């Protein structure tokens, strides 16, 4: 199906227009991105998946060794500090790589889906120091390769990843009658069981009860994380012996192999309420807060027919007439706003990379060499710090100020998605500030009207074009393109 509006395709289903990048021409082109994206290696984690596993396990061992030494009265502050610095550094690199990924990838729809699902199955780098390294790994390992296949597969990959088990305390949870509970008094933690039903599958208010939450938590017992290998493991001594009833089915773990949670995930994925919940959420994310019910229904039908094949669900969404009408109902989230801004500016990837280098250069170094620096050195140091501050203010700091720091959702429910949340006075002034900042730094020699065309093409209102052309100076013209309602809506 040829698209009635390629500009809308790029804005509503991607991260906006980028000069030199042809917007998607038809539905197949959009869907084709999914397969392409799934096999592509993302720019994070920086050492790749195997490399990151090595890093994470090394850091965890170091921390464990230090904790042990501290307990024994020999704390090693240097080790602790160095580890913290390394984790912070790695997070920053990965977060910048995530920005770069979204900015530079020509697979906008795939990237938007990656963000959608990473947010749907939220985890946070703020949970613990090792999580700074594991969350990027989680997105690369669990979310990105699986967002076009069956929902069951995506659900299992997300739930059964160390990041999710750590984030929602599953690694702390043991069955009340398990060996571990009897031995050391630990007990059940319902966190993952609850969010699994409420957020990941059936949806809040879909009719499940507290008993169901507890049942799900019991079925999940035994799942834990081997921190030394950073792998999910099944620990029989944590597991609650069955049978457990959940939503009309009894889970017995007959084979005693700890696979009852797999069955549960399959059942939850196949539950019609899950299809309803997820399809509704996709439409609310891509189209409008007030999801058109006929569109959701068409997607649910595709879900049922394909047994939860997500590409078929996306196809049903894109084939619906409502997918191409009434643009601008949603407000770009901060990440989308910043990414689409950089795309419109067409900043070369190398230059974007330099921003990370500036931030790295600005890291404090209190070593003896630094202390011995003369006045000139100190001035250079000030300059370095200033550049670091600026690079941060353009990227990660901007997202922090706008309320959407990378991989740091405020809760397991992820970031808010309603348009009203992202169109407030303070949000708007942050966006105007950011627009001014990038316009001054990157837009000094650009023609505002040319930039408007690059950023919005035919999505710009004629009155907006007129106002931009009359701006009192070019920098303000560029600023207004980025701050315009059209550029902030999708």
């Amino acid at each position, binding site marked *: 199906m040829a698209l009635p509006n390629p500009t809308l395709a790029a804005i509503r289903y991607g991260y906006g227009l980028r000069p030199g990048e042809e917007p998607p021409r038809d539905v197949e082109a959009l869907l084709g991105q999914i397969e392409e994206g799934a096999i592509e290696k993302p720019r994070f984690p920086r050492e790749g998946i195997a490399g990151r596993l090595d890093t994470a396990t090394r850091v965890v061992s170091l921390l464990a060794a230090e904790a042990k030494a501290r307990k024994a009265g020999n704390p090693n502050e240097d080790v602790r500090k160095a580890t913290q610095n390394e984790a912070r550094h790695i997070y920053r690199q990965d977060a910048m790589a995530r920005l770069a990924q979204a900015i530079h990838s020509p697979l906008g729809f795939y990237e938007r889906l990656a963000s959608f699902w990473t947010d749907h199955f939220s985890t946070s780098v703020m949970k613990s120091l090792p999580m700074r390294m594991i969350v990027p790994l989680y997105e690369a390992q669990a979310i990105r390769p699986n967002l076009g296949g069956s929902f069951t597969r995506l659900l299992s990959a997300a739930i059964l990843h160390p990041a999710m088990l750590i984030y929602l305390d599953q690694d702390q949870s043991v069955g009340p009658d398990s060996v571990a509970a009897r031995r050391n008094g630990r007990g059940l933690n319902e966190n993952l069981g609850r969010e699994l039903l409420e957020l990941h599958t059936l949806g809040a208010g879909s009719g499940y009860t507290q008993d169901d939450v507890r049942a799900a938590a019991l079925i999940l017992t035994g799942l834990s994380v081997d921190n030394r290998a950073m792998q999910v493991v099944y620990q029989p001594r944590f597991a609650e012996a069955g049978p457990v009833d959940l939503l009309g089915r009894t889970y017995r773990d007959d084979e005693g192999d700890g696979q009852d949670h797999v069955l549960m995930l399959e059942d939850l994925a196949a539950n019609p309420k899950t299809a309803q919940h997820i399809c509704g959420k996709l439409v609310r994310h891509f189209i409008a807060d007030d999801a058109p019910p006929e569109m959701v229904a068409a997607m649910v039908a595709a879900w049922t027919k394909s047994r939860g094949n997500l590409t078929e669900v996306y196809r049903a969404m894109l084939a619906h007439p409502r997918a191409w009408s009434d643009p601008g109902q949603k407000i770009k989230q901060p990440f989308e706003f910043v990414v689409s801004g950089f795309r419109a500016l*067409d900043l070369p990837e190398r*230059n974007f990379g*330099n921003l990370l280098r500036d931030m790295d250069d600005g890291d404090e170094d209190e070593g003896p060499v630094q202390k011995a620096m003369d006045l000139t050195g100190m*001035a250079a140091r000030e300059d370095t710090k200033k550049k670091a501050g*600026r690079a941060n203010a353009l990227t990660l700091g901007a997202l922090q100020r706008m309320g959407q720091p990378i991989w740091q959702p405020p809760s397991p429910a992820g970031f808010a998605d309603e348009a009203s949340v992202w169109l407030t006075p303070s949000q708007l002034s942050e966006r105007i500030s950011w627009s001014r900042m990038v316009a001054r730094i990157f837009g000094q020699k650009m023609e505002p009207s040319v930039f408007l065309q690059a950023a919005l093409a035919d999505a710009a209102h004629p009155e907006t074009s007129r106002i931009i052309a009359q701006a009192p100076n070019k920098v303000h013209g560029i600023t207004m393109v980025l701050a315009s309602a059209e550029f902030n809506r999708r």
Partner: protein
Amino acid sequence: MSFDNGFRLSRRGFLAGACCVAASPILTPVSFAAMPGDNRFVTIILRGAMDGLDFVQPYGDPAYAALRPKLGLRPDTGLIDLDGFFGLNPAASALMPLWQAGELSFVHAVSTPYRDQRSHFDGQDMLETGGNGKGERTGWLNRTLAVIPRSNARKAIDINTSMELILSGPNEADSWSSQSNFALAQDEIAFLDRLYAGDPAFAKAMEEAKKTDMSADSLYGDAKRGAGIADMAKLAGGMLREDYRIASFSINGWDTHVGQQGQFKKAVGDLSTAIVALKAALGEDAWKKTVVLAMTEFGRTARENGTNGTDHGTGGLAVLAGGAIPGGKVLGKWPGLSEDKLLDRRDLMPTGDVREVAAAMLSRQFGIEPDTLTAKVFPGLSFDTSSAYLKG
């Protein structure tokens, strides 16, 4: 569009003088060029088309009062008389001590060769390139660097943000800016209001942002903007007191289509703040050797419009300040304001080329021959040793 050039930042240090590293402004870049010799030259670009007729009001012209019934002042309504014919807008009263000391002059009815279209972007391009048309893509201040005698000892800073067009070009110049993203100018806010007028949700958020202390402070705060302007000028002054001899920066806020009185007062206040701060930062000795030239892309309509403002015009005003200028004068050839004297029956008729003012100041400050200036810096300009701006 591509930003390969100039964005990759040098790691080299700068500012051995470290005078103002901590206290200065980033996002309005201040551009510098270092030069041997003691004389200094500063350009200030007033972006948005400054209304010269409001800044230095020709109250003695018989047609003035009728053209400007709301905006026009007289000495008995607050105008500060300068010479019996022209008077200074009271918003610039902070500059009066300079006028009295012979460190301030104005050049009326000047413009670039830009005509007819009245587009800010094109007008500013021409003001900064100093050429006759759109072909030139380097700044005249940058080209000047190559023709200043004794320039072998030139030292330059190699830092980032983006250089403004006036100092862009093949010759080494530095740009440096401060951390603070200082507040929007009044005309910029007015444009944002217009931008959001068609989208009620955005218009409402914008209205509230202006009323909310925190947002308003970061975006629109007068105090913050004033501090930002002063920081920028202090930075420029500090640099000029040390190794640098040429500096350039911009002040926005002059596009006063609506409610000019309030907007113009703020913009004039910003310019006055900048000049006073520059003088203070330079110190007495350096100020004596300094010429500041503030100029704009074009002037505004002689008549007020229907919204208490003025629209894009042609002939404008240049401001000269510093201890090395012919001070205490309103220079230029006054064309008169009667309707037959106006350009297109609407604009102050330009009787002088602002580039000639710039050329004369460069010649005075750096001993550059007029021929060299017309050949290399301002192609097409007619300027020679007989120029009135070389006298006094």
